[in-house]
């Protein structure tokens, strides 16, 4: 009985706190994406800019680690039984990748364009005994070019 009460409170806590944090995060992401909208981020390996015009080219990267909450984990483990889209993890990945891109843009500062951008994703704490810590990291990196006017 106690076990059940603990389980349900964790579930409610996970849902409440998780939803709140997610909404806040999305608000912040949307604001910062709007602010940085004029810095193009492309996957092209090269751009058609004469070399003498490029003032600097440097590696920029950003990474973000987002944790799963208790509710999402239970929802995903239920999904593991039946199969299908693990919808509860979709928003985590989405947040981690967009946050990583934003941090990369922040590192780029006043660059004109970031080329050859890649995004890597990895799980953290996957193998720590039976208790999954359940975090995921997204890392975005690319080459920031600053072009003379």
């Amino acid at each position, binding site marked *: 009985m106690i076990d059940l009460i603990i389980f349900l409170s964790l579930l409610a806590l996970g849902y409440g706190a998780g939803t709140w944090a997610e909404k806040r995060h999305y608000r912040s992401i949307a604001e910062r*994406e709007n602010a940085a*909208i004029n810095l193009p981020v492309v996957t092209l390996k090269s751009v058609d800019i004469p070399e003498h015009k490029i003032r600097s080219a440097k590696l920029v990267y950003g990474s973000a680690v987002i944790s799963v909450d208790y509710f999402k984990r239970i929802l995903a483990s239920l*999904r593991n039984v*039946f199969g299908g*889209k693990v919808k509860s993890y*979709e*928003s985590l990945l989405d947040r981690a990748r967009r946050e990583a891109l934003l941090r990369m843009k922040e590192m780029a500062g006043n660059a004109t364009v970031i080329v050859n951008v890649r995004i890597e994703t990895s799980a953290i704490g996957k193998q720590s005994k039976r208790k999954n810590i359940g975090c995921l990291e997204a890392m975005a990196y690319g080459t920031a070019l600053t072009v003379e006017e």
Partner: protein
Amino acid sequence: MKFTARQPGINVNVSPTHPLKDFAILAGGLLAIVVGVYLALGLAVDLIVPRLSMDLEKKLAGAFVGRLVETEEVDTTTRSLQGLVDRLQDRCAPLPYIITVHVTESDAVNAAALPGGHMVVFTGLLAEMTSENELAFVLAHELGHYANRDHLRGLGRALVLMTASTVLLGADNTVNSMIGQGMVLTELSFSRKQESQADEFALETLFCHYGHVADATSFFNKIPEDGDPGRFGHYFASHPENRRRISHLEDLAQERGYPTGNPLPLPAELTTKTNAH
């Protein structure tokens, strides 16, 4: 035409389904499956139990009665109860079981039928007894559970639940440990119908053995209605409809013309035990 950077407006990477709706569907579906499997396997238990061989039952019994057999020291109380059970079994309740009586120190006013013919009688029960007939009824009631093999059904459903949870959640899950903690000797639960049948069996045995059914229901009457269910266990806790059982027995005795006679006093070994308490 000049390019203006713009946000896409919708998020294609996150499904719009509300997580609570998702949770309700999945949890509900899983629950329905578990309940379905539990019911189906419960029915399977009812099919298997009558076909379970005595040998196999003895093997299964090991897991439940290992402790009892180890701490076995046959004292006069146990011997006296064993004698009474043997006498009942001998003439009036021929069962394919070799019943072994174990007396366990406990306040619980209770007795339990465990697999493999191990009958556990708690000292709390003995302390409440005033006549041999009364005691014989309780023992015969347990014999009735053996006759109908209710003791296996009682365990069987718990085992089925453990099996179902192991299949779905893997071994060493919370459901199993909860059942493991909850499995107490006194908590073998029987349905109303199973109790009724055991009562009827006990009444017939009592009549066959003594030629009358005096004190058949006196035990029920003695227990206060607001008694702590924990103490009165299997005879009373699971049966808020005690009165129904008493009147059922009385009706049955009347219908079959079982007379009431003079109850025999308790055997001396048991009385001293009672007084010592």
